[in-house]
């Protein structure tokens, strides 16, 4: 009997539902995940020995978190599961990773990328000072390590996560100095028809807002970030920003959580050669996908926030749909699966509409990138400022991101442009007068994350274990 080796990267909502669907249809996928435990970022499971209950940890999403974790626990004997495993490259039908300092190689026929998202950040002058965290990082500190990033925390940026994490900090006993949102409140009202496609979720968001107000948290909408104040010795001390009416304010704090919604993690898809397309609404390059999650490369699929930023509920459905696509491609489609596909697509349509509403309600403030002061650091790995990038664009006559990277070093450091390339592109577009789409997209390069040079040391042989993700067709 022919066997098919199926590899899923990422054990968040998309990866787990994908695996579950495949197992239910008699396949045994290999699931590899960078985290120590399943759940992804949103339903991140606590390390062993932590005792907080689901309600405390996941709030309104407790039931979903528990359901996903329980599914995973049931699945686990029917999976080849590699936690704590970091993927660094992909070549042909082989994926390169390492786990606990040991190289691993996986051969596959089908690859399902459920790689999730990271914070989308907009630099602000002074953000390189100690005490500035990304919003998601601030949340992980709380969820995973049970610590706050500071005693007096300002939350700045835009997007629903801004309010969620602020209220989580409040609940955990931290003092929230302010929530500074770059989007005007009126945007929320104009996006309301789309947001009401999930009325209970929108209502919960409003309650978060009310809760913050009730606790006396200072909330500002339509702001423009100006500067993170502080010193190299003592870190962040205050945030200076322009209010919607143009007046300038300062709020004292000892930490800043900064985030503007999310950006998909697409490096592996990039290394696999998948095609991208420009999305006008979010001003991001997204994977080209068919309605089930097939990429432009045969037998490579993507689901979850790594494919489209639509949140955890959509990720679960998209994961299942990608599994259905794979089953179809193996000629294992059934009428039941077809019916299930219809239902999932109907549900996803609603979730997509809601996600679109969120993007409209909390838009990426592209114009702020054009307004960044020349001394604002854009690329924190290489410490390259907006002014240096602008001068490169003008002096060297380039308006293409990979060129500008080669000449300026923006995107060339440890993060490989994952945090700075999209802002760099905005700065290049503004400085050159070109449309963002025309300045292009930074190409991904291996390794996906910094790779220890000792990994393949000769004296530490044996060579990489090759794992063949196999299954027997019955």
């Amino acid at each position: 009997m022919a066997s098919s080796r199926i590899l899923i990267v990422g054990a968040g909502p998309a990866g787990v539902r994908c695996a579950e669907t495949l197992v239910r249809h008699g396949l045994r996928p290999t699931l590899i995940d960078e985290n120590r435990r399943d759940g992804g970022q949103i339903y991140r499971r606590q390390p062993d020995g932590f005792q907080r209950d689901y309600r405390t940890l996941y709030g309104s999403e407790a039931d979903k978190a528990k359901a996903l974790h329980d599914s995973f626990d049931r699945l686990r004997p029917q999976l080849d599961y590699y936690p704590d495993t970091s993927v660094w490259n992909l070549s042909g039908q082989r994926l390169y990773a390492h786990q606990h300092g040991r190289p691993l190689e996986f051969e596959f026929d089908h690859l399902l990328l459920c790689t999730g998202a990271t914070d989308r950040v907009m630099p602000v002058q002074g953000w390189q000072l100690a005490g500035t965290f990304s919003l998601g990082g601030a949340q992980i500190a709380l969820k995973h390590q049970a610590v706050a990033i500071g005693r007096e925390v300002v939350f700045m940026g835009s997007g629903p996560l801004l309010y969620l994490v602020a209220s989580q900090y409040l609940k955990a006993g931290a003092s929230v100095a302010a929530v500074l949102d770059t989007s005007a409140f009126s945007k929320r009202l104009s996006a309301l028809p789309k947001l009401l496609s999930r009325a209970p979720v929108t209502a919960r968001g409003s309650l978060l807002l009310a809760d913050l107000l009730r606790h006396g948290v200072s909330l500002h909408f339509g702001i423009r970030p100006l500067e993170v104040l502080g010193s190299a010795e003592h870190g962040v001390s205050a945030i200076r920003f322009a209010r919607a009416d143009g007046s300038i304010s300062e709020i004292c704090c000892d930490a800043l959580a900064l985030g503007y919604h999310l950006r998909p993690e697409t490096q592996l898809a990039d290394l696999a050669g998948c095609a991208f397309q420009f999305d006008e609404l979010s001003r991001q390059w997204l994977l080209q996908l068919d309605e089930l999650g097939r990429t432009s490369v045969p037998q490579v699929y993507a689901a979850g926030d790594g494919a489209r930023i639509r949140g955890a509920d959509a990720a679960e459905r998209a994961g299942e749909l990608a599994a259905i696509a794979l089953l179809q491609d193996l000629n294992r489609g059934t009428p039941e699966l077809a019916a299930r596909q219809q239902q999932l697509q109907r549900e996803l349509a609603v979730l997509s509409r809601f996600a679109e509403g969120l993007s409209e309600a909390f838009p990426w403030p592209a114009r702020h990138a054009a307004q960044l002061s020349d001394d604002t650091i854009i690329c924190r790995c290489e410490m390259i400022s907006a002014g240096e990038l602008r001068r490169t664009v003008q002096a060297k006559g380039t308006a293409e991101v990979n060129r500008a990277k080669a000449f300026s070093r923006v995107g060339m450091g440890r993060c490989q442009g994952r945090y700075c390339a999209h802002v760099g592109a905005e700065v290049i577009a503004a400085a050159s007068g070109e449309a963002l789409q025309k300045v292009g997209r930074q190409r991904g390069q291996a390794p996906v994350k910094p790779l220890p040079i000792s990994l393949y040391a000769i004296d530490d042989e044996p060579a990489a274990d090759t794992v063949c993700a196999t299954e027997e067709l019955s």
Partner: protein
Amino acid sequence: MSIMATTQPTPISRREADVIIVGGGFMGAASAFFLRQRGLSVILLERDMIGQYASGVNFGNVRRQGRYLCQLDLANRSRALWSQLPELIDDDLEFLPSGHMRVCYQPEQIAELEAYAAAPEARELALQVLSGKALRERFPYLGPEVVGGSYAPHDGHANPRLAAPAFARAARRAGADILEGVDVSQVEKTGSGFRVQTEGQGEFRSAQLLITAGAWGDRLSTQFGEPVPLVPRGPQMSVTEPLPYRLKTVIGVYTKREEEVVYFRQIPRGNIIIGGCHRAIPDMVSRRVSFEPQAMKLQMQQMRRVIPQLGNINIIRSWSGIESYLPDSLPVMGPSSQVDGLYYAFGFCGAGFQLGPGVGDVMAELLSTGQTSTHIDSFHIRRFAAADQHKSVAV
């Protein structure tokens, strides 16, 4: 959207020039610059972006030692021009005459290094062959397998990403037409000169034609009845996170085994750039080549063989590009043997970066005067003429 960077065609102001250069790598860009210095009008046609393939992705060695002796005259001329940077082109290529160390693992290779150092052609390199105590004192961090080395005090390194574009900008400032996004489909000799046909950008004419099209050079030379056995390969480069700046000498391993040929250099910013051990096969249709995981494994292993203390550092980035190789490891450079007014400078076999300014200077001299004072006969395209089957290397 393809992941290939899209290039917008440059607006075209002129269709005729004394010289058309096909290919905007280091050789083409430097030739355009030096031709303008000599007063010839120039149009350079580049299909994608200036310096995109071999010129922008190589290791950045400004190295003379280890070259075939017949190449050192050209390399010396080029080295003199490197010393004149950045004044020459009013741009900084980050050239650092850091010294270059060529190390070996076999005791019998020390004699080979000595013989090379003693050759009359290598005199200007001022090579010092080191072994034993002298080697350890000078380079205490070298691993126990390293038994000897040849130190070239005047060799060094520069930033390849900056080089060709900087020469192209200087050429443009001097009046050359540098056109990007113009794909040449056909080249032919007319009664009075050359006609260059492009894909969708019309045709161009010139009295003389210079082919500097790197890995695509053979496709154009073939159109003039001079095919060459050119092979494209992808260099494999990786770079570490920044570390304290300690490795101030470029180091390369001298060996006959390809997987042992690692070379590396540290830049003052702290990153160590590593190359060698493996070459990939490019896809010439999509014009893409990947860094192969195998190369990184080998580089990691071989790096630690040269410097065992490099234990806990991280590789943060890798890249490749498209280079062109010939069976005797020498370039095709000089006049055509078939067509008057036609010249070639391509196929630099992974060792063209140091030669860039010199090649530009020599080609400009050749095109404007019909001859050159530098020895380039060994690189003549006639060596691949069908009747001439010998593939020996002139050392």
